[in-house]
């Protein structure tokens, strides 16, 4: 029991240090920018006195350490500053944009897992065969193609040429603001409202970006599943299971697969974190009003508060997911206990 508490406290300690490091980095990014934040706030032509007063009001005349502590105190209170572009607090903006990204990433993860895990198992069972080689090439291709290229080609083929997919965006104009905003996740909100047309519209708009993101993460899931399964299939318990005459399907899915399931949970958590990165690029191509688009639009306009806020949020999610993966692994796998 004592050892457990010690483990837990050292884990929490390292998470705390990592989070502190995150804020140091985002603070530095916010500070090294070439645009003077004071000028950005009051404008180029403001008189000297106004600039000086704004500088003091914004606390930018203080020593760096004090400024950092202020910044830290603000973050803890959920204050990420104001966006120059939207004139809203960054936290409010993020709360509005983030559900769209969450919807995209979650759907993509589910799709990627449902396809990627069986593919990986299949490749491992048929190691070295044509099946394995084909799956390997498909996965390597998924690692090699930039998401934005795939997204643009998909829009070109399925929307412009074939006309079977809807264009960019999250919903058709006629459905804009028709569904009351509850969770911010359109598919769920439209279901709550019982509006089937809106649900169908939201779902159809998701197909392309979700498939592209899913392919991108499926590559990783499949490769990892294959590697884990190859290891598991070498175990002596597999030979026993085969020797007692179990069918191939039962050996693979009932005996080998459960031993790798725990490791896969970790992989899925990491994939989910990686999806956030892919979402940033995908959203710009599909005009998807999510965190990624918010981030890139702010970047273009050198609006640093949203950039720093969004970066911090994504870093935070990354750390939490990593921690979750670690904990789940320790909790579920008796071998590491």
């Amino acid at each position: 029991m004592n050892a457990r508490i010690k483990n837990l406290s050292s884990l929490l300690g390292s998470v705390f240090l990592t989070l502190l490091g995150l804020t140091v980095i985002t603070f530095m990014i916010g500070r090294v920018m070439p645009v003077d934040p004071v000028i950005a706030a009051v404008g180029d032509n403001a008189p000297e006195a106004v600039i000086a007063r704004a500088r003091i009001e914004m606390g930018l005349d203080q020593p760096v350490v004090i400024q950092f502590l202020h910044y830290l105190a603000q973050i803890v209170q959920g204050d990420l500053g104001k966006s120059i572009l939207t004139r809203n607090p960054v936290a409010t903006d993020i709360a509005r944009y983030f559900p769209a990204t969450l919807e995209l990433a979650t759907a993509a993860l589910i799709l990627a897992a449902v396809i990627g895990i069986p593919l990986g198992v299949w490749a491992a069972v048929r190691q070295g065969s044509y099946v394995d080689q084909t799956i390997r090439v498909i996965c390597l291709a998924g690692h090699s193609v930039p998401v934005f290229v795939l997204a643009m080609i998909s829009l070109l083929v399925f929307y412009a040429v074939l006309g079977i997919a809807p264009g960019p965006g999250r919903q058709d104009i006629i459905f804009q603001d028709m569904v009351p905003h509850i969770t911010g996740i359109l598919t769920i909100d439209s279901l709550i409202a019982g509006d089937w047309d809106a649900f169908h519209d939201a779902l159809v708009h998701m197909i392309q970006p979700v498939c592209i993101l899913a392919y991108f993460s499926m590559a990783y899931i499949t490769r990892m599943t294959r590697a884990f399964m190859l290891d598991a299939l070498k175990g002596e318990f597999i030979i026993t299971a085969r020797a007692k005459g179990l069918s191939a399907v039962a050996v693979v899915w009932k005996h080998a697969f459960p031993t790798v399931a725990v490791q896969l949970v970790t992989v899925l958590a990491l994939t989910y974190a990686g999806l956030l990165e892919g979402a940033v690029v995908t959203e710009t191509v599909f005009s998807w009003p999510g965190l990624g688009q918010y981030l890139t639009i702010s970047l273009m306009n050198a609006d640093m508060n949203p950039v720093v806020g969004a970066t911090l949020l994504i870093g935070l999610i990354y750390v939490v997911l990593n921690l979750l993966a670690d904990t789940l692994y320790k909790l579920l796998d008796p071998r590491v206990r």
Partner: protein
Amino acid sequence: MIQTSFRNWALDETPASRSQANWGRRYRIWLSLKSNPLAMIGLGIILLFALLSLFAPLIAPYDPSLQNLGNRLARPSAGHWFGTDELGRDILSRILFGGRVTLGMVVSVVAVVAPIGLAVGCVAGYMGGVVDSALMRITDVFLAFPRLILALAFVAALKPGVESAILAIALTAWPPYARLARAETMTIRNTDYVAAYRLTGASRWRIMLRHIAPLCVPSLIVRTTLDMSSIIITAASLGFLGMGAQAPSPEWGAMIATAKRFIFEQWWVATIPGIAIFMVSLAFNFLGDGLRDVLDPKQN
């Protein structure tokens, strides 16, 4: 003739000198790599692209920045194999010169990242204790961001451009190398031969530099090769989002960003640089995958 004698010399079971043994090892790696078709395809494509971009000024049919507004957005033809872009510039020539930008960025990033990662990893792994925890905490912090996001934020804070992009990608790319080098160092640290060096009075820096770091290199090479494609894609993504190489530069990602506007009418202007990025990064993945099989049998 020379080939067979080199083969016999290199594959000699009882090498007479250190260099002969080294060449023998290299030759065996090459032989097993050669038997992997995907890896060879990858190597071929990489060499082809490297040569094409190296000799771009000689090969390119046009000046990549030569505008011809009378011939804007032309379809691929005998005169312009890949067509022309929105300012009438020849896309083939721009792809060739763009290869110089992309490969230059990748090489610079690797040249910065690999030595830093190796140094940090070796020091952390060999010293252990407080040094190790401190260095690894810093590594963890950088690993806590998705690469592209952190690079975007860095570039935005510095100033969009190729140099900032290289710096930003390097800043986000070194941690995995450090982790890897640390893991390798920790297994090597406790071997008998390192203990023997210590007994003969070698300083810890000498041991790290001469006897540990070289052994970390093979796995770092594999890692670098596999990482190349992700560096290429990150660089292209930065260009695409307007944060990497800037407009007149024929960088592939930036080319796609400009061509995005008319993708539905003149699809080839955006698609061709996309294919170039895809080919190069796929080639690096093929090669890296093959190298991993050869150099790191543990993974299989």
